[in-house]
């Protein structure tokens, strides 16, 4: 369990650094674009595409932070439909279901990325290959599957507040 705890802590730290970098790129690139348009009458042509990629990366990686922090959107009206005494088992079952669903989707996402790679698809604005950034999609879902599997095996590692409605 110590190894699992360390792995989760490392993942969360990496995700935090990644999200912070994403935010920095997003704010800087868009602000410089607005500033240049204001000062010189013309912005940076690729700024919005870079902003979109930064936003997509931030949004995907932040999903891990939502899992570790217990801030996933979750309707709670059915929480107490089953007797309280079964809740620990139901929570473990729930974590296993989450892990399975995320893993299956990660496989589909990987198929999609392999297809994009085979086609050599590029961004029409930045002319860069699309698949390296798309690779984030299967990666974050694989990590999410791993995280929920660990939550199922070691209930003590689950976030204390398991959900939040935004």
């Amino acid at each position: 369990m110590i190894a699992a705890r360390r792995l989760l802590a490392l993942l969360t730290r990496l995700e935090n650094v990644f999200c912070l970098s994403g935010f920095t790129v997003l704010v800087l690139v868009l602000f410089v674009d607005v500033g240049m348009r204001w000062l010189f009458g013309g912005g940076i042509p690729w700024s919005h595409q870079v902003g979109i990629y930064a936003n997509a990366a931030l949004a995907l990686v932040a999903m891990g932070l939502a899992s570790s922090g217990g801030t996933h959107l979750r309707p709670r009206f059915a929480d107490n439909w089953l007797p309280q005494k079964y809740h620990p088992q139901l929570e473990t079952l729930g974590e296993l279901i989450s892990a399975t669903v995320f893993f299956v989707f990660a496989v589909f996402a990987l198929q999609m990325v392999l297809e994009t790679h085979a086609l050599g698809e590029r961004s029409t604005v930045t002319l860069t290959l699309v698949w390296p950034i798309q690779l984030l999609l299967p990666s974050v879902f694989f990590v999410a599957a791993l995280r929920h599997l660990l939550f199922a095996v070691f209930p003590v590692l689950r976030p204390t507040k398991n959900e939040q409605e935004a």
Partner: protein
Amino acid sequence: MTFFLLFVLLVGLLVLRQPMVVVLLVALMACYFFWGEGQYRFIALDAWNALNKEVLLSIPLYLLAGNLMAAGSMARRITNFLQELSCFVPGGLALAAVLACAVFAAMSGSSTVTLLAVGGVMYPALMEAGYSRSLVVGLLCAAGTLGIIVPPSIPLILYGVMTQVSIVDLFIAGLGPALLLTLLMSAYVIWRCRDMPTRRWSSELGRSFRASIWALGTPALIMGGIYSGYFTATEAAVVAVAYTLLVQVFVYREMGFSHVVEVAQDTSRLIGGLFPVLMLAVCLNLFLTLQQLPAEIVASLASWLEGPVSFLFATNILLLLVGSVVDIGSAILILAPLLNPLAANFDMHPVHFGIMMIVNLEIGYLTPPMGLNLIVAMGAFRIGFWDVCKAVIPFVVILLTGLFLVAAVPSISTFLI
């Protein structure tokens, strides 16, 4: 039979406390299994395309700006100024709370942030001034909901993303209903506090204005930039982040690097909860549109509903019910693309319908069992759940009156667009 099994499966997932992202993934996989010939990789492709959109850029930026504002003293400064400004009115302090919520909502774009930021400052002040606890809690909960209708608003952006309606038009249209609701709440507060003492303006008014002038610049910058057409919604969002950082770090000197990092991390957690749901809701919407389901719903319901009035009545009842059990983000993401074509069928302006939908779901913040502001207030003000519920009843009636007016008089929303 297939629909019934799918429904049972999804309810079963909710009983097992699955997050929306899992529920939507299972729904999508089931849809592709039954009606999509098993081409599951298209779910991933649609998910990527959903994220690869410029229109989404404003959401993390407004969330970040709102959290940065809430972390410093901006709310307290604005509240102090409004408190001095409204001191000559009976119940001026309570009125200041309503106005502070409206102004702060225009900065933060979030209902919960507004309730916590303004409520944190106003609750002790109102209690100390002798206002009844029931009025204070009710008014802070209700005025806090203005955060989702006063532009810029994250729910308005979500509605725009899901229905392809201009977000700038939605922001402009949100102003009329926001003013109406603020006016209705203010009138009620003045009436309830008509026996409270008043005082004249003093030199404190000028001092509080000077202290809050940088904070008041934020809504002026966002709203002024958008309404004048100088900024798009995304540009206004990035300018709001930069301006707030400038004010908090260099002018008020209340935030250091580590504090900014902490706020960015909190915001990331919110984004991580919202965006995967948004991404998959867009996928589901695309699939349903390809299968022509919205068109079929329109055709079947159009024959059942006799006209615009019965449509408005049925839609509002549905949304009030949904809003009381499901969070506003999920409700918009799932229902907006289904209801919008139906509204168009009854010749409703898409912007008017969107605003009505948001005002309706705003009431969901105050209705048990899942009203988010009730739950937040319970924790923030240390008061029992049912006491909060009782305190908000008059304000729910006020909001329902506002909803009726917004639904019945389209020009309240559309007069500026």
